[in-house]
């Protein structure tokens, strides 16, 4: 059985993660003997196999249930009562959150945002997506699970995922004819492809906003002294479909309805930089899209748009492989993503060198967001001027936004860059909100007096997440939730992020629970600066944004939680005795300590 799985993935060491995902599905965990066997079969150190199993949340050393339920734990799910639903399911099924029931029938977990914020509360069950959960469904679900009913027999509409495109623009309107953009690219030299993309002003849609043409050109030209486009050098095209930023789901929608545009953009890139191999790194949460994506790739091969001698051009060979993630936000960071593609834990690399010169297997690699490739495809087909007709000089074109939270019409909005936030709020039916989280927790939290700020690289850059919060929401609770998200997702490689995000989590817990003092706010601010300044990658560098930005905008919301005394111990004396109480079976008054400030 193991051999079969290993063979299916080509038996390469780089397939380790893909193999382990299948092992997990088959055995509901990765047993130690299988780790040893895999190390032998793939000629890998056993420590690497164990490291991978323990790094990714969707892999486990101990067995999960026959029904493995994972509730999406994003703030927007919280607003819709997800925590309560999870607790009710646990209670009905007699299982503790995070554990597997003794009869192995079920396990229930919380998981980071599953990319369904516009139709939550959401959950995954054995990798399938459940949307719009409510109390009634939870009751029925508990029965189905207890009766061991096959997922195929559960009501179909529970699994329904809607695109909810509320506003379409350059990228979502109309259909790009299959191959149209590639045909144009074939008439051009690489240098002309770069200059067309360059002229369009296209910048990366994944958040950082790097100029796409520049990235492609660096990858093609290589380091100083190299021969541009040297055909003896293997280059790779990677599509980042990890979409882990809480509140974003626009890549899911692009991959559902415009996947051909994305494939086409990747192929244009391959043509330009001279790559033969492409990857789509699809987050594990979107596994349900895998089959339709594979069908889409097959269509392209049949039409001669992928494979050998594409569109009859001798020597233009390119194909795309899909790799799955397994529950790790950090794998959206491009160098961690490449590590993961190589079958390793997702630890970001040291830079320089950058992926454009030393990426997958140390070879020049372009990593772009899903939306960037979709845009590149249409720019190639319709021309740079078409793209330049929308947006601002700094930020041309449109941005696809994922809108969720307290508004009447959540979903996908493709807006021209340069639009004010207020415009979007009107469109989505958000009346007088308290604040908007632009670009997810690693982005910017803005309050009402900033709603005229514009979306674009010159003011409010965004990867696409827009979470709207009404006046009824507690801003400290929101910042707290985001802070815990980062602590939970820290890869653990560098000290300031690994330890610092957990310390920030403790501090905000203390404050939110009413035990904080003015001193704790000072402490939090200082710690935030250290984590931001010394962390290894973008995760740590932005992890304190939610706390600092909300503290800056809503200081009174923090202050009203503080105790007046200047010092409150961070150490809970009575709590520390809990283990001893359990061991001695005592619960009497003398077994407790009271602590006064």
């Amino acid at each position: 059985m193991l051999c079969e799985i290993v063979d299916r993935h080509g038996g390469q060491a780089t397939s380790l993660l893909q193999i382990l995902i299948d092992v997990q599905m088959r055995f509901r965990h990765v047993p130690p003997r299988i780790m040893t066997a895999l190390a032998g079969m793939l000629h890998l150190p056993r420590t690497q196999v164990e490291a991978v199993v323990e790094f990714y949340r969707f892999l486990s050393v101990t067995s999960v249930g026959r029904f493995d339920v994972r509730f999406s734990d994003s703030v927007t799910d919280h607003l819709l009562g997800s925590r309560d639903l999870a607790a009710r399911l646990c209670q009905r099924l007699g299982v503790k959150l995070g554990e597997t029931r003794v009869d192995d029938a079920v396990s229930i977990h919380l998981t980071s945002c599953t990319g369904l914020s516009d139709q939550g509360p959401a959950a995954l069950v054995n990798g399938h997506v459940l949307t719009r959960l409510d109390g009634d469904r939870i009751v029925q679900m508990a029965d189905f699970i207890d009766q061991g009913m096959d997922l195929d027999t559960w009501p179909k509409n529970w699994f329904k995922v809607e695109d909810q495109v509320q506003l379409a623009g350059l990228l979502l309107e109309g259909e790009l004819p299959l191959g149209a953009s590639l045909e144009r690219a074939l008439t051009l030299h690489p240098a002309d492809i770069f200059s067309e993309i360059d002229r369009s002003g296209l910048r990366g849609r994944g958040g950082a906003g790097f100029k796409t043409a520049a990235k492609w050109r660096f990858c093609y030209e290589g380091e100083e002294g190299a021969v541009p486009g040297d055909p003896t050098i293997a280059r790779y095209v990677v599509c980042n479909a990890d979409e882990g930023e809480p509140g974003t789901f626009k890549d899911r929608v692009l991959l559902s309805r415009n996947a051909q545009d994305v494939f086409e953009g990747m192929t244009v890139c391959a043509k330009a930089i001279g790559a033969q191999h492409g990857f789509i790194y699809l987050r594990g949460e979107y596994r349900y899209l895998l089959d339709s994506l594979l069908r889409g790739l097959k269509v392209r091969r049949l039409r001669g748009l992928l494979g050998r001698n594409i569109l009859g051009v001798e020597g233009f060979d390119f194909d795309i492989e899909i790799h799955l993630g397994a529950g790790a936000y950090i794998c959206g960071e491009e160098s961690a993503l490449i590590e993961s593609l190589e079958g390793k834990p997702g630890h970001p690399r040291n830079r320089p060198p950058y992926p454009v010169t030393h990426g997958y297997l140390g070879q020049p690699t372009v990593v772009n967001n899903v939306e960037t490739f979709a845009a590149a495809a249409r720019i190639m087909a319709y021309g740079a001027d078409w793209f330049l007709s929308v947006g601002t000089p700094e930020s041309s074109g449109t941005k696809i936004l994922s809108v969720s939270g307290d508004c009447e019409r959540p979903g996908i909005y493709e807006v021209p860059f340069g639009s004010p936030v207020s415009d979007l709020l009107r469109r989505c039916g958000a009346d007088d909100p308290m604040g908007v989280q632009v670009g997810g927790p690693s982005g910017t939290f803005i309050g009402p007096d900033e709603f005229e700020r514009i979306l674009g690289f010159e003011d409010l850059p965004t990867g696409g997440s827009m979470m709207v919060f009404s006046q009824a929401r507690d801003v400290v609770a929101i910042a707290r939730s985001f802070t815990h998200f980062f602590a939970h997702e820290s890869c653990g490689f560098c000290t300031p992020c690994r330890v610092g995000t957990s310390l920030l989590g403790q501090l905000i817990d203390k404050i939110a629970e009413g035990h904080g003092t003015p001193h704790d706010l000072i402490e939090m601010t200082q710690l935030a600066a250290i984590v931001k300044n010394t962390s290894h990658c973008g995760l740590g560098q932005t992890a304190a944004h939610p706390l600092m930005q909300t503290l800056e905008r809503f200081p009174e919301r923090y202050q009203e939680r503080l105790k007046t005394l200047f010092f409150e111990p961070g150490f809970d004396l009575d709590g520390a005795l809990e283990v001893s109480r359990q061991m001695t079976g005592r619960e009497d008054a003398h077994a407790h300590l009271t602590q006064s400030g």
Partner: protein
Amino acid sequence: MDQKTLTIDGVELSFDPRQTIMEAAAAAGVYIPHLCHHPDFKPHGSCKLCTVKVNGRFASACTLPAAEGQEVLNKTLELNQLRTRITQMLFVEGNHFCPGCEISGHCKLQATAYGLGMLDSHFPHFYPARRVDASHPDIMLDLDRCILCELCVRASRDMDGKSVFGIAGRGMESHLVVAAESGALVDTLIEVSDRAAHVCPVGAILIKHTAYEKPIGQRRYDHHPIQAALLQEDQGD
């Protein structure tokens, strides 16, 4: 050929273009605090103790290539405060009871803390439950003290060719693992003559039967402050 130069705290020094800032500094006799860096191994860049400011931006000296004209700040109040906090994070993350630790006085973490003038642990302790593995006849593992620097990982993989050690898990659950299904060190290929057995900067990998050969008070950092001792090591002594 023109000699390339950069400055550290205003002092000009020349460097070889293949060097990192850390290597250029060490060659010129300038100490930049560090724990995961060791001149014999590939730069790692995880502890962040070597954080410096290069042309106004924070960077890790052990991984950033030296470049012409860089203005590096190293021994500033701001940087040393930040390094102190990072050192304190390492202390509260594990279980470090120095008076009871057999390598007290040989320990780079402890000596670095002294060097920075650290007086307390500042943050609340996590008191994690960590493993002790005494299964091997010659080598002892006490993971209470592991700071996840991966020096043993690199030594075992790159020098001993055995990959006995690895880091598994994620975030605060990251932990050292050994290459054995049983999880016990005795079932791995490690030998006391391996480089990996001797590279640990703290008291997490210990050689048995050698504990008090040198009495406390006569140990390395009892006599040489970390600064001088580590410079010697980096310069190849």
